[in-house]
C-alpha cells in the first residue's frame, strides 16, 4: 500500500473526551468504531480509499475489537456483504467511490433494500463529483430514491459527520433501511477535529461468535411473492419510521435568522459553501449567524414533510440549494408544500446553475437573485443558468494571453506501463493505427500526451467487453487494454469469459503491475507474497513474475494464446504486439505485460538502500543521462516517453537555440530511455550511469587500472 497509516491508527484508539485531529474520512472511520460495527468491507477508490486502507493496516487492533475487515474484489461483493445485517443484529459498513461503485453494487443493493435490515447497514460513498473527480458526473441520489435507502449528506464539520454516522446506524435499525452516507471529495479530505468517544467492541463479532443460524424466514428473501410485501413496507412502515426518528433526534438542523419571511433549505454537504456565500454578501458572520433562517438537511432522503412545512410556515419564499440535476429535493419540496396547500414560493434551479459543482461564487449569485428577483417581464426566470464549463470558477482568459498547457495526471517516473505505450506508438508508425479499447486504471493515462491512445472507456475492467461489437465489424484486429486491477474487478468475467465463449478474435493486454495502483497500490490476489518480497536478494527487481495467478486463471478458463513479456524490453513488446496482430490464430490472444508498480518497488528499495548505506555495504544506483553536446534538440525521445524526469533545459551551446533534453535527479534508472534509444533509433545522446557505492576491493583495483590506461589513451 502506498501510504502508511501508523499515526492514524493511534488516533483511531482515542477514547472519551480525547480530541481527534485528522482527515474527514478517518473521522468517519473512527465513528464506525464508536458505533460498534462488526464488519467492514469495500473497494478502494478516491476519495474514500483511506477508510479501508487504515483498517487493513490496523489488523491487530481490529481483531482485538473483533471486527472483520475485508477488502472486497469489487463493489458488488462489498454490497452483498451487508446481507449479514438482514437476519442478524450486527452493524456493518462498506465503502466505495460513487457513482461508479454504486453502479457496480446496484444489484446487491436492490436485493438488500427489499427485505430490509435488522442490524444497521451503512454504505459510505465518496461522492466523486466536481473538481478533482475522475468519473462520470452523476449523483448517488437516484440510487437512494429508487431502492429506498436512507441518504445522509452531513454538514462538513467533523463533529457533525461523526454524530450522523452514529445516528445513521440507529436510523437504519429503526427503519430497517440500509443507509448511505455520501461524502464529497473535499469533505473526505477536510482536516479538522472533534471530541472522540470510546470505541465499542461489537456484541456479535469474530471474538463473540453466533452459535446458530437464524430461523428460516421467507420474508427475508428478495424473492416473490414477498417482494410485493416489501414494496408496501418501504412506503408504509419504513419511511414513516425513518421520518419520525429524523424529527425526534433533530438530525436536520434549523438555524434561525431575523428575516423570518424567507428561508434557505440546503443539503448538509453544501452548508459551509452557503455560509461563506452569505458572509461575502454581508448576510452572515463567520460563525454561521445568518440573517436568513436556514434548514440544513443532513438527511436528504427521505425528506420529512412535517419538518419542511414547519420551516416554511409564514415564509413568502424559500431557496433550495441542491447540487446536480435533476433537482430531486426541490421537486419533492414543491410537491409536499403543494399537498399541504402552503403558498410559500420555492426557488432553486431557476436561480442557480442547472448543473455542476456548487461553489461559493455561484451560490452567492443565486442568493442575490433570490433576494432581489429580476423583473419578470425580462424573462430571466425561464432562462437556463449555465454551470461552470470547466473545473475552475469564473475563469479569466484575456485574449492577448496564450493558453496555458494542461497538466493532467500521468505515469510516474519509472512506471512499468509507459514502455508498452512507447512500443505501441512506435509500432503504429510502422503498422498503421488500431482501435484501442481503453479501461480504468493508471494505464488510462495513455490517453493523454504524449500517447493519446484509447477510443472508448466503458467502465472498470470493461475494455475487452467494449470491443465485442467493434471487432467483428473491422478489417483489422482491435486492441483492448486492461490492468490487473480491472481484470480481477470484473474483466475476467465480462471480458475474457465472454470472448472465449463467443470464440472472438481479440487482442488483450493485461498490465500486471501487481496492485490496484491508481487507487493507492492496494493488494490484489496476484500481488507478490510478502515472503517473496522479504527473501528477494535484489529489492529493486520486479517481483510480479513470482505470482502466476493471472496466467493460471487464463489457462484454466481456456485461453490458448498467452504471451508474457517484461514491459521494459520494448523491442520484445513490439514483436509480441506484432505477432498478436498478425498471427493466424483466430481466438483470444492475451499479452500479460509484466512489471511491478514502481511506487511499490521504491517503497521496498529505499529502506534497503538506507540499511546497506548504514552498514557501509556495497550498493548501486542507476541514473540515465544525456550528453548536451550530442542531443539534437528535436525531443523525439519525449514524444515516446512523457517521463517526468526526462525534461528540458536551456541549451548550453550558445550557437544552438532549441532546449536540450536532460534527465533530472528523480530518475530511478528504469531503463526505458536506453530501450527507446535503441528501438526508436533516437539520437546517441543517452547514457546509463551505474554508480557503485562502497565498491569491493577488486572493483576499486580494476577501476583504478582502467582509469589509468584511459588517461594514457586520452593523451595520445
Amino acid at each position, binding site marked *: 500500500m502506498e501510504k502508511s497509516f501508523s499515526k492514524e491508527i493511534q488516533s483511531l484508539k482515542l477514547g472519551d473526551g480525547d480530541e481527534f485531529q485528522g482527515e474527514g474520512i478517518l473521522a468517519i472511520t473512527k465513528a464506525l468504531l464508536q458505533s460498534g460495527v462488526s464488519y467492514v468491507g469495500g473497494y478502494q477508490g478516491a476519495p474514500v480509499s483511506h477508510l479501508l486502507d487504515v483498517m487493513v493496516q490496523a489488523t491487530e487492533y481490529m481483531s482485538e475489537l473483533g471486527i472483520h475487515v475485508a477488502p472486497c474484489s469489487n463493489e458488488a461483493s462489498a454490497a452483498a456483504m451487508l446481507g449479514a445485517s438482514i437476519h442478524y443484529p450486527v452493524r456493518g459498513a462498506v465503502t466505495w467511490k460513487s457513482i461508479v461503485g454504486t453502479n457496480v453494487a446496484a444489484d446487491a443493493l436492490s436485493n438488500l433494500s427489499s427485505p430490509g435490515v435488522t442490524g444497521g447497514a451503512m454504505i459510505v460513498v465518496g461522492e*466523486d463529483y466536481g473538481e*478533482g473527480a*475522475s468519473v462520470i458526473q452523476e449523483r448517488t441520489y437516484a440510487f437512494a430514491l429508487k431502492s429506498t435507502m436512507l441518504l445522509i449528506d452531513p454538514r*462538513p*464539520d467533523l463533529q457533525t459527520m461523526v454524530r450522523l454516522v452514529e445516528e445513521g446506524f440507529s436510523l437504519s435499525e429503526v427503519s430497517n433501511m440500509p443507509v448511505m452516507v455520501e461524502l464529497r471529495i473535499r469533505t473526505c479530505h*477536510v*482536516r479538522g477535529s472533534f471530541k472522540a468517544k470510546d470505541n465499542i467492541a461489537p456484541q456479535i463479532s469474530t471474538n463473540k461468535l453466533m452459535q446458530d443460524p437464524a430461523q428460516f424466514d421467507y420474508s427475508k428473501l428478495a424473492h416473490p411473492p414477498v417482494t410485493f410485501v416489501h414494496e408496501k413496507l418501504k412506503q408504509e412502515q419504513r419511511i414513516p419510521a425513518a421520518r419520525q426518528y429524523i424529527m425526534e433526534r433533530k438530525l436536520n438542523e434549523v438555524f434561525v435568522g431575523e428575516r423570518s419571511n424567507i428561508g434557505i433549505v440546503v443539503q448538509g454537504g453544501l452548508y*459551509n459553501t452557503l455560509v*461563506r456565500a452569505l458572509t461575502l454578501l454581508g448576510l452572515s*458572520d*463567520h*460563525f454561521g449567524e445568518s440573517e436568513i433562517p436556514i434548514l440544513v438537511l443532513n438527511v436528504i432522503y427521505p425528506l420529512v414533510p412535517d419538518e419542511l412545512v414547519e420551516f416554511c410556515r409564514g415564509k413568502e419564499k424559500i431557496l433550495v440549494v441542491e447540487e446536480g440535476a435533476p433537482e430531486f429535493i426541490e421537486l419533492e419540496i414543491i410537491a409536499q408544500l403543494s399537498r399541504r396547500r402552503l403558498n410559500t414560493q420555492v426557488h432553486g434551479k431557476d436561480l442557480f446553475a442547472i448543473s455542476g459543482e456548487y*461553489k461559493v461564487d455561484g451560490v452567492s449569485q443565486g442568493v442575490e437573485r433570490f433576494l432581489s428577483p429580476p423583473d419578470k417581464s425580462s424573462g430571466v426566470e425561464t432562462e437556463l443558468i449555465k454551470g461552470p464549463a470547466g473545473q475552475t*470558477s469564473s*475563469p*479569466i482568459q484575456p485574449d492577448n494571453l496564450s493558453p496555458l*498547457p494542461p*497538466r493532467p*495526471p*500521468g*505515469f*510516474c517516473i519509472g512506471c512499468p506501463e509507459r514502455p508498452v505505450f512507447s512500443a505501441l506508438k512506435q509500432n503504429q508508425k*510502422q*503498422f498503421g493505427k488500431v482501435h484501442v479499447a481503453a479501461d480504468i486504471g493508471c494505464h488510462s493515462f495513455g490517453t493523454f*500526451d504524449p500517447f493519446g491512445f484509447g477510443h472508448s472507456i466503458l467502465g472498470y475492467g470493461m475494455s475487452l467487453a467494449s470491443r465485442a461489437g467493434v471487432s467483428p465489424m*473491422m*478489417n*483489422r484486429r482491435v486492441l483492448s487494454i486492461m490492468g490487473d486491477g480491472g481484470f480481477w474487478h470484473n474483466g475476467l468475467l465480462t471480458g475474457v469469459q465472454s470472448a472465449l465463449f463467443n470464440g472472438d*478474435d481479440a487482442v488483450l493486454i493485461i498490465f500486471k503491475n501487481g496492485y490496484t495502483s*491508481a487507487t493507492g497500490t492496494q493488494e490484489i490476489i496476484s500481488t507478490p507474497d510478502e515472503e517473496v518480497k522479504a527473501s528477494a536478494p535484489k529489492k529493486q527487481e520486479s517481483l510480479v513474475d513470482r505470482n502466476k495467478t493471472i496466467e493460471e486463471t487464463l489457462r484454466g478458463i481456456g485461453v490458448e494464446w498467452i504471451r508474457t513479456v517484461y514491459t521494459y524490453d520494448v523491442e520484445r513488446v513490439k514483436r509480441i504486439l506484432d505477432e498478436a*496482430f*498478425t498471427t493466424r490464430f*483466430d481466438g483470444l490472444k492475451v499479452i500479460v505485460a509484466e512489471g511491478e508498480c514502481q511506487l511499490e518497488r521504491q517503497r521496498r528499495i529505499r529502506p534497503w538502500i538506507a540499511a546497506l548505506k548504514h552498514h557501509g555495504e556495497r550498493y548501486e544506483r542507476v541514473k540515465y*543521462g544525456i*550528453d548536451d*553536446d*550530442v542531443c*539534437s534538440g528535436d*525531443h523525439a525521445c519525449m*514524444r515516446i516517453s512523457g517521463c*517526468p524526469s526526462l*525534461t528540458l533545459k536551456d541549451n548550453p551551446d*550558445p*550557437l544552438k537555440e*532549441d*532546449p536540450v533534453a536532460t534527465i533530472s535527479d528523480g530518475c530511478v534508472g528504469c531503463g526505458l530511455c*536506453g530501450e527507446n*534509444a*535503441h528501438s526508436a*533509433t533516437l*539520437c*546517441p545522446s543517452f*547514457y*546509463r*550511469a551505474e554508480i*557503485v*557505492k562502497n*565498491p569491493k576491493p577488486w572493483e576499486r583495483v580494476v577501476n583504478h587500472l*582502467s582509469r589509468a590506461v584511459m588517461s594514457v589513451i*586520452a593523451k595520445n
Partner: protein
Amino acid sequence: MTDTPIKVLICALGGEGGGVLAEWLFEVATRANFFVQSTSVPGVAQRTGATTYYVEVYPVAKADLGDRRPIFSLNPVARDLDFLVSSELLETARQTRAGMVTADKTRVLTSISRVYTNAEKMNLSDGRIDSSALIEEISQSSKDVISFDMAAIAAEENTVVSAVLFGAIAASSVLPIPRDLFESVIESSGRGVQASLRGFDRAYLQTLSTITGDTGDGPEQVSLAMDSFTASQTIPEIGFLPLSVQQLVTLGIERTAEYQNVSYASSYTDRVINVAKVERLSAGGEAGDFGVTAEVARYLALWMCFDDIVKVARLKSKSDRINRIRQDLKADDEDVVHVYDFLKPGIPEIAGLLPPFLAAPLMLYHRKRLESGKRALSFPMKLRASSVFGYGLFRLLGSFKWLRTFGSRFQEEQQLIEQWLLGVTASFTESPRVAFEVARSGRLIKGYGSTNERGRDNLLHILETVLPNLSTTETEKAVVIRSIVDAAQADEEGEKFSSELLKRKLPQKPIVAQPIRWYKKP
C-alpha cells in the same frame, strides 16, 4: 483583531509534498491555538498532475471565541484569497488566470522553477512557455509577489520543496505565528528533519531579504558562454562586423576548426564574409546590424559541423566527460562509476563516411529494404564508455576525421550548404527581410537520422519550390517564409507544414511512399 479567516491556496504537482505542507500548516495553526481547516482534491492528480490544497485559519485564539467555532469554506473563492503559495510557476499562473489572485488583496509566494508539461516537451524545437511573461502576468494581477527558485534550494539542501515553502510562508508573516512554532512542527515530523530545517532556514532568509529588497536581483538570467567574450579574441578579417556578430563568427570558427581542421574553418569564414559583403552592399554600403550575417554565422557553423559517427565518437570520448558524469551523479572519489552509451548506427551513417562509389550501392540496398516494408538494418550497441575497450573504440572512431572529407555525406552537405547560401544571397535582391528569413530557415537542419532527413527535405522544398512560387509583396513574403519554417517544426508527421502550404496556396512536397504495413485480419 480580525473577523475574517486567512485564506491560503497551495498549488502543487502530485507526489511533490503539497499534502505534507497543508498538514504542517494545519499543525502550526493548531499549535498557535487557532481554529484551522485544510482541504484538497488529490485523487489521481497524485500521479504527477496539477492539484491544489486549501487552508483557512481563523487568527483569533480559540479561548477568545468562547464556544463559537468559525465555519470555514471548503473551496477557495475567486477574488477572496489572501495568499497563493506555489512550487511551480505555470501552476501559479493557472490559478492567477482562474481569478484566484487579485491586485487589492492577494499576496503570491511562488517558486520561479518550472516543471515542463508534456505539451511543452513534445515540441520539435522550443515549446516552453516564456517564464518572464508568466512572472509579469502574476505580478500585475497580485498585491505583491515573493519569488525565487525554491526547487533549487530544495535540491541543494537535499530536502523536499514543502520544507522550503514552509520557510517562505513563515517569513512572509501572512500567518501571525512565530518562527519557532513553524520549526517545532518540522522537528516533530519525524523524517529528514535536519535537511528540512536547512531548507526552511534558507527559504526564510531568502524571503525576508526579498521582502526588504536586500538582494534586488531578478530571476537569474541564463548566461551564455559568449558573455565572457572579449575584444582581444577578434579576428581582423571580420573586424568590420558588429561585436555581437563577431562573437558568433568566432565561435563558428572555433567549432569548425575543432570539427575538421583550420582550412575547413577558413572556408566557414569565407562563406560568412561573402554573405556579410552582400548584406553590406544591399544596405548601400552602410554598416547596418548584419542581422542576416548573424543568422548565417550561427546556422552555418552548426550545419558545417553536421552530426556523424566521427563527431559523436569524439564527443563521447572527450577527456572530461566521465568526470562530468561523475560530478552530475555526485560520486565520491572512491565510488566506481560505469557509463554505458546507447548507439545504433545504421546503413546511412556508415555509408556517409564512405566515398560515393561505395556508398551508392549500400544506400540502394537500404532503400530497397525500406520499400519492401522491412525494418532498416542497424546495429544497436550498448558500449561501456568507462571501460578501456569502449573508450578506446570511441577514440579510434573519433580519429577517422580524415575519412570524412572523402565521404559521400560530406560532399552532399557541402552542396546543400551552397544551395542554401545562394538562396540567402539571392534573396537580398528581394529585401533584407526575406534574406533574413531564408537565413533563419537554416535552423531546420539538425540532429541525426530521420530528424535530419526531415529537416533537410523541408528546407529543400522551401528553397526549390516555395521561394520561386512566392508571388506576394516583399513584407508579406518574409512573413510567409517564417510561418512555413515554423510550421515545419510543429510536428513529426509534417501535418502543420502541409496545411500551412495549402493555406498559402503553395505546392506541396511530393508524396513519398511511406512503408506502413497495415495490420489486417488474416
